[in-house]
């Protein structure tokens, strides 16, 4: 028997007030045509690391749960190596080196994570930055946890079924608060959440399930990519005719009634005249 999850979202999130500045982790799609954007998510629990791109140290003492970037890099192939944070160079990486291909003008996220069996690895995802209709947001869910296939729940219903490591799925949903939870595929008891997720309008809210089920440190990480919004299709502010614009109707109708009355009186007079003859 399926346990029902609460459908209504009522808990308030703690929200960060930003006066004008765009938060570092809210990114806009790359505009250049010969470069690409790369973000890096550290999703291996417990171990701070250094990240080398094309042999150069790029991220120093990068902690688990942190998101770096976006880095602007040449489009094409790059080599990423991840070492212990006290390593002198990239000669003995703990992950990689791995080759990633960055398409020109795309936004990408490389993730250091555990595979389904718990071994450290790295995966690259292309971030979907295609346009959204007014009022809509995009949610992308990425399974990068040492865990079997999972179901992703939104507001008490399964939204993504049987997602495996290291795969993703995207949904377009009305912007607003969503109560999100993750269960093992086919089950109802959540292994993550339920917790409130803000789906930003005109943006891609990317949610990662990371950590290790066996070690009991499964967690959700989020990354927001902005800039996909569209203006509404219209501003419908004129569905009631103003009195001034309809007053003319009354004047003309009034004149019409008078004219009709005059015409009728004239006809009656003529008729009386005839009968009097």
């Amino acid at each position, binding site marked *: 028997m399926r346990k029902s999850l609460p459908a209504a979202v009522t808990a308030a*999130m703690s*929200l*960060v007030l*930003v*006066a*004008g500045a765009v*938060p570092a*982790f809210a990114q806009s799609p790359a*505009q*250049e045509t*010969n*470069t690409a954007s790369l973000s890096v998510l550290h999703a291996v629990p417990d171990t701070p690391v250094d990240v080398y*791109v*094309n042999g150069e*140290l*790029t*991220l*120093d003492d990068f902690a688990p*749960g*942190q*998101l*770096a*970037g976006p*880095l*602007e*890099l*040449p489009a094409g192939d790059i080599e990423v190596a991840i070492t212990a944070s006290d390593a002198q160079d990239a000669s003995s990486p703990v992950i990689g080196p791995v080759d990633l291909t960055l398409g020109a003008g795309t936004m990408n996220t490389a993730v250091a994570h555990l595979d389904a069996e718990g071994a450290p690895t790295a995966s690259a995802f292309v971030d979907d930055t295609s346009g959204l*209709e*007014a*009022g809509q947001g995009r949610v992308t869910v990425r399974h990068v946890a040492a865990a079997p296939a999972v179901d992703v729940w939104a507001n008490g219903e399964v939204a993504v079924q049987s997602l495996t490591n290291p795969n993703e799925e995207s949904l377009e949903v009305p*912007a607003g608060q969503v109560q999100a939870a993750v269960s093992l595929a086919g089950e109802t008891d959540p292994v993550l959440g339920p917790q409130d*997720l*803000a789906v*930003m309008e*005109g943006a891609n809210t990317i949610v990662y399930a990371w950590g290790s089920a066996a070690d009991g440190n499964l967690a959700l990480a989020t*990354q927001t990519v902005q800039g996909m*919004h569209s*203006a*509404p*299709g*219209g*501003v*419908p*502010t*004129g*569905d*009631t*005719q*103003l*009195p*001034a*614009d309809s007053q*003319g*109707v009354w*004047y*003309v*109708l009034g004149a*019409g009634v008078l*004219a*009709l009355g005059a015409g009728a009186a004239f006809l009656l007079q003529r008729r009386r005249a005839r009968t009097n003859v």
Partner: protein
Amino acid sequence: MFLVLPLAGLFLYLFCMGEGVVQEPIDGRAAVLGVAETPGSESGASTQPRVVVPHPDEVPVVTATPGAVVEVPPVSLNYPSLGIDMPVVPTGVTEDGQMEIPGDAATAGWYRYGKAPADAVGHTVIAAHNGSPATPVGPLNAIGDSRAGDEIRVADRAGHEYTYRVMSVEHVNKNELNLEPYFSRDAAPRLVLVTCGGEWVPEANTYSDNVIVIAEPST
């Protein structure tokens, strides 16, 4: 036969009234709307930018947890020279993809997915019906009489009051209107007021035009 004359008069009256006077914006449109230049839009030969892998100290690093940006909503709109003093409430998008407008013309809606007066960039869009059953002539109906230099004040939920100066007022036929520039989120900051005007179109049960005032922050 006696009915023809008054009915003809009625039709003539309806089609002749309310001719929208299209006023050109005071400045070039791009300047008025504060449209952001897109990278690489300058003419001339574009050279390949030299890209180097950034130094670790230059790379922004944050904790990947939810942190939604919260806009501080405007709560009132005051336009003294046109006698407008009305409340503003946040609104979104209706099922047909249009901006949601408060039903009573006495209340204005602020497009919650856009920018707010507190933001350093982008457009604050505020709209209201020009008339409604409860308020036959709405306050915003008067913006067709806006003049460049008019002062407009908007107060927000944080208690701040922002002052703007009108730059332009225009009547645009809805069928020809591209709303994207008016709803920009990254152009220079502007206050954009929208209502309806032009001619009443009975078969569509709406007015023909949007009337749009653009104002810039006063220093």
